[in-house]
């Protein structure tokens, strides 16, 4: 494994498979009455979050605690950053206290790269701007594999805000690396330049995009994009791209519906889809803990690190 996990491109296909296989074993720990192993005892992990996050921060923290790491949450609001310390200075101060790993969530793309250049600690990217969110893609792959037994050859359709989504970038990198047939779909105003050069099919017609899909993954539409700049209204978005029971009927009968959360019900996804039989959205959340345990364990050195 590399020193840091900043992007899916840091991982080979074999390493991705190793993480997913390791996560299987980690999940079993979460099913025990005493959900704790001593694997990372004596290791210090700092969760450095510059953006509000409930799901990801909680998931990392539970994963760290189940592995017996000493964890510390540092939540920094960007408004205090504007008048205060730079990311580099904060990082070097934390680094001076010799943590083993820093889990970073930050609104700027590439923030993890800056930290990795300045720190000896291992850096895990928990979402950087519009760039990547690698552990989300890993837990998505874990969830898909659990249901379908494989990634290769599956038709996976991703629908939503393709321009601003770090989940999309990580998922494209991972799923194409493992041989999936990836189709991405969204309004023309939210499709980044050159997306077709990443080995995916790009579509603006959601009914065609979901036809025959094994997996449909919805991406969140940010509130601030809903008022005219990228598309006219939330209502029009839902009518044109929202995932409804009628649309799902075009996919394969055993399709699974995914969403990285938090959801906008009635905007990108209908409630009866989110809560319906095809939805694996809460499984994704559950699997997130196991996958992050696997990442923490393997980055810390795998078997060498455990006692």
């Amino acid at each position, binding site marked *: 494994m590399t020193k840091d996990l900043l992007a899916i491109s840091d991982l080979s296909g074999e390493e991705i498979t190793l993480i997913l296989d390791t996560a299987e074993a980690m999940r079993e720990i979460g099913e025990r009455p005493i959900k704790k192993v001593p694997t990372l005892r004596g290791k210090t992990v700092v969760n450095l979050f510059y953006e509000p996050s409930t799901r990801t921060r909680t998931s990392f923290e539970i994963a760290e605690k189940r592995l017996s790491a000493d964890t510390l949450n540092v939540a920094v609001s960007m408004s205090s950053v504007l008048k205060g310390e730079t990311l*580099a200075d904060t990082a070097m101060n934390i680094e001076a206290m010799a943590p083993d790993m820093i889990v970073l969530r930050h609104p700027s*793309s*590439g923030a993890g790269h800056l930290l990795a250049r300045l720190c000896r600690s291992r850096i895990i990217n928990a979402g950087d*701007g*519009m760039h*990547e969110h690698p552990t989300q893609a890993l837990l998505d792959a874990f969830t898909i594999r659990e249901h379908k037994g494989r990634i290769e050859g599956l038709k996976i359709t991703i629908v939503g805000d393709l321009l601003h989504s770090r989940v999309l970038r990580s998922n494209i990198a991972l799923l194409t690396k493992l041989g999936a047939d990836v189709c991405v779909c969204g309004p023309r105003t939210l499709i980044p330049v050159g997306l077709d050069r990443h080995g995916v099919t790009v579509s603006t017609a959601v009914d065609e995009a979901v036809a025959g899909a094994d997996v449909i993954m919805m991406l969140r539409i940010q509130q601030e994009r809903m008022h005219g700049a990228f598309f006219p209204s939330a209502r029009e978005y839902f009518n044109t791209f929202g995932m409804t029971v009628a649309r799902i009927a075009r996919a394969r009968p055993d399709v699974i519906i995914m969403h990285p959360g938090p959801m906008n019900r009635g905007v990108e996804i209908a409630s009866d889809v989110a809560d319906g039989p095809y939805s694996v959205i809460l499984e994704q959340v559950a699997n997130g803990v196991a996958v992050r345990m696997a990442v923490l364990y393997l980055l810390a050195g795998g078997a060498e690190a455990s006692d």
Partner: protein
Amino acid sequence: MKLLKGGRVVDPVNGRNGVFDVLIDGDRIVKVGRDLPVDTGTMVVEIPSAFVVCPGLIDIHVHLREPGQEHKETVATGAAAAVAGGFTAIACMPNTDPVNDNAGVTQYILKKAAEANLARVYPIGAVSRGQKGEQLADIAELTEAGCVALTDDGRPVATALLMRRALEYASMFNVPVIDHCEDQTLKGEGVAHEGYQASALGLRGIPGEAESIMALRDISLAELTGGVVHIAHMSARQTLDAVRYGKSRGARVTCEVTPHHFVLTDDMLASPEPYDTNVKMNPPLREAADRDAMVQGLADGSVDVVATDHAPHHYDEKRVEFDRAPFGITGLETAVSLCLDRLVHAGTISIVRLVELLSVNPARILRLSGGSLSEGAPADVTILAPDLQVTVSVARMRSKSRNTPFDGWSLRGGVAATIVGGRTVYVNEEAGSWAQGLGLRA
């Protein structure tokens, strides 16, 4: 008197390209010819025959940061960087703090330049008061105080109406308006060229059209008004097309390209160092097709000037997240080597054309006294060592800032010495011991 003997003189204005002697008396060139007789008392400087003696290079796009941001650069450190880069004269942008929109700031810069006594420094005044794009600056006062051009560089003139009036008003004083072309609405919060790399890295994009749309607007306004517009730091192939279109119609338009835009592409965003803030500049590095178009424009004569857009920033300011870092890189001390290596040795342009781009045309566009080795002209001379192997080293640079993506680059061609007003202000010791006769005087 001083006789520069044995070098290859490249002086396009006077049609010279060969071995000539250049006789300097005090601050003037008094005679250029073959095998000039040597009077007693004349110091003879034997120039290696591989060296090029040319009119002093002029960089018409430099940010000196003084007054206001002296931690990045001062007039003195910028002038020192200039002469080390072979430039005998530089024109400095008005986006200081306070803005150079009044004679007081202009005079302050000129005073600092006189104290530094290295390169000639020509201030450029603001088009609008405070560079706010609302009302014209006191242009008569600025030109009277010594400003050689007007620009709101870095903050483009947003409205066509104000740009029209600026072109009209400036034409009374025979100064061009230098145009930083950028449609702010199209640029949005962009930090890099809108292309594959920015998309993959999750960086907000700036399309080439953000530049070309305003270039087309202002070329049209130059036609409307008869004013003179100079398009700064052109980066997009669409902008070059716009300039060609304007020139073909007889509009009074000229343009410049920076070394980084004819050498680098947006691939630098990802490699060798992902999110390196030293490849963040405005306009951004664009795609290979744009870079190649700039090279083509330099070769075919569409581009008039190479200018550096020297934009020093303190390393603390650059050691931040990519989207929070300031735009800009230094350029004064790398330009000549990049031009020689990537344009001349690459076979794209001749050394004569290089001297046109770096000296003749800059002087012509800003109506400066340099640009030739004419008898009677000020003795501003740059001596180039076209085959000198140069390794770029930020540690050795004279600029106060070190924000360049070229550190460690190995390039063929450099500066041997710089003479301003007959006074040797820079000698490159790595170019050999020949220059001792020049008598470097600080």
